[in-house]
Structure formats: structure tokens, C-alpha cells
């Protein structure tokens, strides 16, 4: 998939005053919104807006897994990340690409540690992520949507999973990179964590970073992840608090 977009120099990505292409400061995350339970046929669902990313995750199951793909002692998790043809700058062909396969796996591996799979042996859990609009950091936004959808579906989990991509532009670390920064920057570093456990479940880095930069990136990511996590929690509370109230009453 080609994304033909503006080729920017490092100076264009970050001004002397420390302002990025979309007006943000280096430690400022993009606007983040989560809506829970937007679908009726899926067992759990969440719609996420992270910057210009618009991503819908739906969970189906758990149901009995097919003979050949089932585990006797645990559930089998399938994740499918898919982009709609109109979601990117250049139209994307509807056929399933290698990149989508790779991202499906990355997202699955980010979510698996958080799910208590051994509670549901021989079953299958399907997580479907549809990218309706993409703008950099879609795998992180997908993890953010999928973990909320899993909680909404009643899947047993150790924690939610929250993710953000750190980048480097003009030799400076920046949080929550957008499309332009992803394409033109010096590094791209998505990180996912179980926020209450402090454990990292997704870690991929492309580019060049020093050891010190890696350490700082993880610290910066942690801070952003904590604030994104609050949004995820509030979204689930918004849907379920009224049910909790009527239960107690």
C-alpha cells in the first residue's frame, strides 16, 4: 500500500518553537474519544477516534473453535485488522494485504497477554478491526479499540490494553505520531501496555534511537498511556454505570 503524501524535511516537521505539523507540542497526545457498544450483532464493540484515526472494533464469541484450530486447554484468539478502501490518502485496494496480515498479528500479540484464555478452553474469540479513516498509529488505535471491545463482550481479562506510538522528528522525541510524522520522521515506536500491571505487550521500533532515547520514549509513552487509559475507563463506565445503578437499586 502506497501512501503518496507530502515529503517533509525535519525542519518542517517541528518548528524552532517546538510546534508540530498539526499544532501540537512534543508531549501532547492527539484528541482521543471512545464509544462503547455501538453495534448490535457483535458481542462487544468500541469506536475509537484517535486524532484523525476512526477505527471500529467488534468482538464475536467466544464460541466453539473448529477442530483443527482449537486448543484443549485455552481459547484461541483471532484478530483481523482491515482497512477500508476510502480510509487512506490514496485509495487502498479492498484485497487483504501483507501489511494487514502483519498488523493483525501485532495487535493479537498485544492483546493476548491481557486475556485469561485458560478460562475458556476449546473456544475461539474473534476480534475484527475495521479502519474507517487512517492517520498514523493505526495499530495503537486498533489495540485501544479492541481491548475495550473485549471488555464489553465479557471476555475475562487481566487488564485493558492501551497503546501509543512515540516518534522522532528533528532529533526530538514526540508522542502519538500522525501520518506525516510516521512517513517522514526518524523513528516510529509503537508501545502497548496493561496500564494497571505496568507490563508492556507491544513493542516495535523502526528507525534509529539511542539507549537513552529508548528509555525516555518508554517513560513518555507511559504518561500518555495513563491518560488514554482514563478515557477508555470512562467510556466503559458511561455505558455500564447506569446498569450498575439499576442493579443496586
Amino acid at each position, binding site marked *: 500500500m502506497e501512501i503518496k503524501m507530502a515529503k517533509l524535511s525535519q525542519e518542517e516537521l517541528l518548528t524552532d518553537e517546538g510546534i508540530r505539523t498539526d499544532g501540537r507540542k512534543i508531549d501532547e497526545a492527539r484528541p482521543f474519544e471512545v464509544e462503547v457498544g455501538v453495534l*448490535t450483532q457483535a458481542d462487544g464493540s468500541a469506536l475509537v477516534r484517535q486524532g484523525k484515526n476512526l477505527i*471500529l472494533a467488534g468482538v464475536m464469541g467466544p464460541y466453539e473453535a473448529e477442530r483443527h484450530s482449537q486448543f484443549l486447554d485455552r481459547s484461541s484468539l483471532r484478530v483481523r485488522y482491515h482497512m477500508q478502501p*476510502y480510509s487512506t490518502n490514496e485509495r487502498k485496494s*479492498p484485497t*487483504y494485504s501483507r501489511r494487514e496480515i502483519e498488523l493483525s498479528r501485532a495487535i493479537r500479540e498485544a492483546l493476548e497477554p491481557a486475556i485469561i484464555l485458560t478460562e475458556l478452553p476449546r473456544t475461539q474469540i474473534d476480534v475484527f478491526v475495521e479502519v474507517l479513516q487512517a492517520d498514523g498509529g493505526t495499530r495503537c488505535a486498533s489495540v485501544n479499540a479492541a481491548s475495550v471491545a473485549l471488555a464489553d463482550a465479557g471476555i475475562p481479562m487481566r487488564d485493558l490494553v492501551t497503546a501509543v506510538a512515540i516518534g522522532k522528528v528533528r532529533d526530538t522525541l514526540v508522542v502519538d505520531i500522525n501520518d506525516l510524522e510516521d512517513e517522514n520522521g526518524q523513528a516510529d515506536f509503537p508501545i502497548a501496555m496493561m496500564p494497571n500491571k505496568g507490563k508492556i505487550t507491544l513493542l516495535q521500533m523502526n528507525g534509529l534511537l539511542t539507549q537513552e532515547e529508548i528509555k525516555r520514549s518508554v517513560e513518555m509513552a507511559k504518561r500518555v498511556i495513563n491518560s488514554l487509559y482514563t478515557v477508555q475507563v470512562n467510556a466503559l463506565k458511561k455505558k455500564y454505570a447506569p446498569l450498575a445503578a439499576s442493579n443496586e437499586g
Partner: protein
Amino acid sequence: MGQDYLEFLLAKFKSNERVDGRALDQYRKLEILPGVVPKADGSAQVKLGETQVLAGIKITSGTPYADTPNEGVLTVGMDLAPFAHPDFQPGPPDERGIGWGRVVDRGIREGKAIDLGSLVIEEGKKVAIIWLDITVLNHEGNVQDASSVAALAALMTAKFPPDIAEALGKDSVELAHYPISVTIGKIGDYLLVDPSLEEEDYLDSELSITTLEDGRVSSMQKILSGALTEDEVLRCVELAKEKSDELRAAVMDAAKKYKSAEEKKVNEE
């Protein structure tokens, strides 16, 4: 078991009432949101009851088809998101999904809603290609009409990318006609407009009729293995015209509101 429920439905229909409280000729609540995907050249999300679809448009330039060198190209695609219904598998749509896409495609194409001749940049060499892709996000019945409404709303609010706009000398896709599909299902002797997912399981026949704003019909399609009398078909055509006017008015209203909001934004900048 199914038989008992069917008898229950028929008894209700006799009093012009459906399980969800609607009259037999009543549509579910319709919400139209143009411009939900700003990066696309046009887009619209539609909620018809709980059925949700999203139409997205991308416009590129390319070579025309060999047999129509003086025409631009319109291609309509359908994608059934696997979370939209347990029957939907990942991958290309099944025959039902393809059928839904064809209803939208034929309605626009046969109705000559877009003057493809006006999309030519260089005859025989370069034309505008309109890629209209419809994603079914949640299936609770009547995907056809929801898609038809979304497609029209997206087309009405679409804008050409700057280079193509310059080459064609116009900003937006100018529609010549405004086709809208109306789907009617038959259970026993009763005709139901906008079948819900539950009702779809009991239909003997289903008829989708696309009507233009001037009352002419641009496409019709009957599916399922029941039969319709001549009277029933004519009654459906009448019903389709009436209902399509209602739906079309809602699309026009949503498109108008969206365009004026967009203009306001531009003026403020």
C-alpha cells in the same frame, strides 16, 4: 416452532402492526451523517433502525474502458464487516452481499444519476474514476435501502480532489438524478416496507425498486423463491415511489445542512 411465530406475525399484520410497533408501510428511524470520513472525497454514514452502513468515495484519474472512451468510470463495491453479523465471514462478500451492492450500482447506473460523459479529462486517455465503496457495519435488515441512501448522500456531498477538479473545471460531482431504493418484503398476503432482520427470515419474496425524483423507475429486483401477483407488483411500485420521496427528502436535507456547515467553516478560516 417457526410456524407458530409466523401465525403470530400474520395476526399482527392484520391490524397493520409489526413486532417493533411499526405500520406495514413505515420505515424505521433514519439518520444520515455526511462527511464522517473527511479524508475520503465523499462519505456518509447511515443508520436505518439499527442497520448501519458507511459509504466512502475516492476519486482518481485513469484510462477509460476501451468500449467507452468518452465516459468516466463508476465502480461500486460492497464490504460486509465480519462483526456486522455472525454469518459474515472475512473476505469478499458472498452472493447476498454482492446482490446488495448490485441494487445500489444498477439504481445509479441505469438511472443515469451521474453523467459519465462529464467526467472526461482527455477523450480516450484520461477520465475521472469514482470508486464508491459501501461498508456494512451492522446488519439488522434492509442493507439495500440503507446503502442506497448512504451512496446518494456521499455522492451529493463529494468533492473532486484538486487536480481533477481543475482538469474538469468543477468542484463536485453534479448529479443528474437522485435514485433511491425501496425494499418491500412479502409475508403471506402482506407487503412490508423496510423489513427488519427478524422479518427477513420469514419473507416469501423481497422486491427492491429504485425510483428517481421524477417517479420513473430505474431498476427492480425480486429475490427469494416466492411469487408475486401483478397487483402486488404494481402496488409495490406505487409504494416505492411514495417511500423513495420520503427518503430522498431526508438525504437532500442532510446534504444541504452538511454543505452549509462546510461553507461556514471555510468562511471562518
